[in-house]
């Protein structure tokens, strides 16, 4: 049983996708911050276990649930990252047979969360800091970068 399967059976998919608790894959060269590439490896393994269709359905279900929660911009960046990786896996790498469904509900949730972060971060800092450590603004920018990549590479918009 792969890690994603375990997380599902333990009702811990949030921790799994965002790298909390036992699901943390620390990056020793970045102060032990979570390495999402290893989580995505687990997602690929799950896809082999249950098929890519079931995987994408489950992943989207979990992502939507996470977007309804009070998450950080770092979490938001990771969520966007998984979406990009799934799209790339379908369109370019051909490792998934089915496409992650970016439906209206997702776009609504994603847009709402994006707006919330933009509002919060703009409210709190009237001058942009472009080169701090990995902070809220950094991760928000990164999420936007990845969302933009989804649009330019795969013509899929994550927002409304």
């Amino acid at each position, binding site marked *: 049983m792969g890690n994603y399967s375990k997380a599902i059976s333990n009702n811990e998919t949030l921790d799994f996708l965002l790298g909390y608790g036992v699901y943390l894959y620390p990056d*020793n060269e*970045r102060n032990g911050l979570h390495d999402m590439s290893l989580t995505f*490896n687990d997602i690929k393994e799950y896809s082999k276990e249950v098929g890519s269709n079931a995987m994408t359905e489950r992943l989207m279900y979990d992502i939507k649930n996470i977007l309804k929660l009070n998450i950080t911009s770092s979490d938001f960046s990771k969520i966007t990252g998984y979406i990009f990786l799934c799209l790339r896996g379908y369109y370019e790498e051909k490792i998934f047979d089915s496409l992650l469904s970016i439906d209206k509900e997702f776009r609504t949730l994603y847009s709402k969360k994006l707006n919330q972060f933009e509002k919060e971060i703009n409210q709190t800092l009237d001058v942009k800091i472009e080169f701090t450590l990995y902070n809220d603004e950094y991760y928000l920018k990164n999420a936007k970068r990845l969302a933009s990549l989804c649009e330019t590479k795969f013509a899929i918009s994550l927002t409304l």
Partner: protein
Amino acid sequence: MSKDIQFLEKVKYYLFLKTNWRIIFSGHGNYLDKFWDLDGYIDLTLPENIDISTSLISARLDLWVSDIKVNSLEADKRGYNRRHIPLNLFNSIDDLNNVPLANIDAGVFCYHNITEDYKRYVFAFKDYYDKFSIYQNESRIVKEVKEYLHYKPTYASLFKFALSIHVKSDSITSFETFLSMPYGNELTPNTWRYYFNQAIVSSKTGDQTKIMKYDFSIVSEEISIEDRKYLLTNFWSLNMESSLVLALLTPPKNDEVTARQIYQHLQFSSSNILLALWNYFQQLLTTDADNPFFKFNNCLLELSQHVLTSDDVETIGVKEVEVYENYTGQWNLFHKLAEEANVFAHCMNPYESRFGMMRFGAEPPLMEPHPFSQSNPKTINFSYRAFEMSPPSNEYTQFNGFPIMPYISFNEFDPFKFVKVYLVEKPEQISGFNNYEKFISILFSDPQNVPREDEQKDERHVRFIYMPAICAYNLYLMNNYSLHVEIRTYLISVAVTIAGVYFSFINVARYSFAWFLATGTSAVAITSLTINAPGVRQEILDKYGTDGQEFLDAWDIIETTTITLNFAYFGFYGARNIYQFVSNVDNITSALETFAIRYQQLSLKLQRILNPIYKSFYKTALITLEEYVDYVSRLNPILQNGKSYMWILDYKNLNGQFPLPSSYIKPDKLVNYLNDLQTEELAFFISKREIVSQLDYQTLPPSKFAGFTSDMEKILQNFNVSGKNVQQLIGDLKVAKNKFLVNDEIFIVKVKMGEVHSSTNFQFDMPTGNEPGVNIDFFRPGGILPSVDDLVNVGQKIYPREAIIKNANSMAHNNDWDSFKSIFGNNNVIQIYP
């Protein structure tokens, strides 16, 4: 003190206390009304009369960067006093320029009035640059300086980082008074410490207004143990808030002595402080994870870990063995354990615990109806059942729909008695504990054989925590308030701490609880049962007399060392608390020698019983020692006279950061190293996954660790000779187990400066250990990587050297593999696997 001072006091505390400048932009919260996480934190709640909305940048931590290398060597040479970095107040930019740079450790630069109402202050920390990652953007700084500061940008070259604060004109006097205030002492008026003491004195008379102005993390760090004890004893009559009490229950970081003193004060004080605290905090229990009762229990739990002894562990362990020997069954076994050996289980999955009970057929009569033992009312007696989320309603008295907690009498049982709580993911794991043989086979399985490729399939192992009985009881209470998730998360983290496992490595055996057995305290505690199981010690003494005693003494040293060091799996590289290992290395060496000799003299039966100890801890301790000896034999020849590895570790302990290599390495050796570095250049191994699928980052880390090219090529040859065994590469490089996976594409990257894109700021240097992101458990000073057996020239060793690529994040690859290759040149990124 005004609120201005209260605020700046925190800033100043940061200046003089935080010598290791560990700033983490946590990504949580917003900039102004929450906090910056500053290894502890500074609460940046602004005082009322600093109105940020009308100022340009206002109070924020700003990072000023330039490409001019600051000479922090001078500061390092002098060494910082741990508690006081002097502040220099300058009245103008001319003043600042007139001060020799070397004289400024951290200064406040009073700049100018930015508006009629505000004056801008800039705190600058010039030595910050070498320690933390930054995103350099010179043009932005220049632009900002020109645009907003109206001054030539050269002062940014003096200071790498600054905290700029705008202060309203009517607060300037008090602000500057504060800034010029030295740390001082309790007896000297107008010093920080004097004011702090005044606040403590007021607090002791019942006036909490002054102390409440202080950040509680400061109170935790600064208050003396005597004051702490007094305030804790009288917290109720002094009308303290819960947050202040929690601060008093929190010892300073890494201060085990104070932690023990606090715990023992609770335990042995004539007035029943714990009862008073418990009664107070349990009234504050809510379903909110942040509630004071939850924090109170955490404080107790953490304090208790400082007084937990191997005797406590063994007492429970021996009883546990006895119960297992004489008992079979599943749930009823745990009840038996709860009653006789103070062992409980905390199921971490609420659904499993609820429905799992039914699957496993635990009949209702077996359930304990009440957490207190009926046969012995002095003990709490609840087992797995008691930690469920939804106990039967008859355990509560309902009052207007609210549950009333079961009454607890502190006179009836010992709240400080240590109990063992298992953390169980699923009830199935408990079924593994249904007889003595399984118990032995599960808990004593060879730790070294466990963390492997198939570790995720291994569910035989469980984690556990030792805690005071009161904490276990509190878990029961909190569970019934639906705090399950928070409790679970916290307990896991505590179990990790106790087991000596830290998150850097938890992924190695993500689901294999064996990892917790394989590493650190818990492993030794369990394994030592083989030696402390009934009759074993006595049999050794009876048969082998003084030799047997020597053997047992040697084991005790190995056990103690291992508990302290957590090197059970990783050896010297990756060991924590290496300072204690180095300072006790002679004792450890002698104990290992004795143990080996005497072990061979034991009977086959005893050898079999003690096999887990021999195979795991003895051998790992031996490897650690060998690696240490090898390391110092390479380090010592390049050290300056009078310097040693211990000196370096002492410096780190004292100053919070490693010394610069130039302060301990012979100048000629350093020159040789740097010359070789320029000639050979660097290479590192990387997986494509790390670049294209780690989407949180579009660059390499700011400090990229690498090896000298010729050494890395030898490592590569080893890898090839091993049949491209990924484990060989991981083992040779001593990196985390998931650094390279079997399904990865792995490359060697040769960093040839001449071919690297000309606009990069890449710089090669010897690592200091203070690099941003570095895992100091793996870092060993002197540019030395672990020696490796040469598989090509059998019998020879490879002695790789390590270096750092600074500013490795200055070129973005944007998670695109071709872009990454173009940074280093396509021909220099060579696939080696598969």
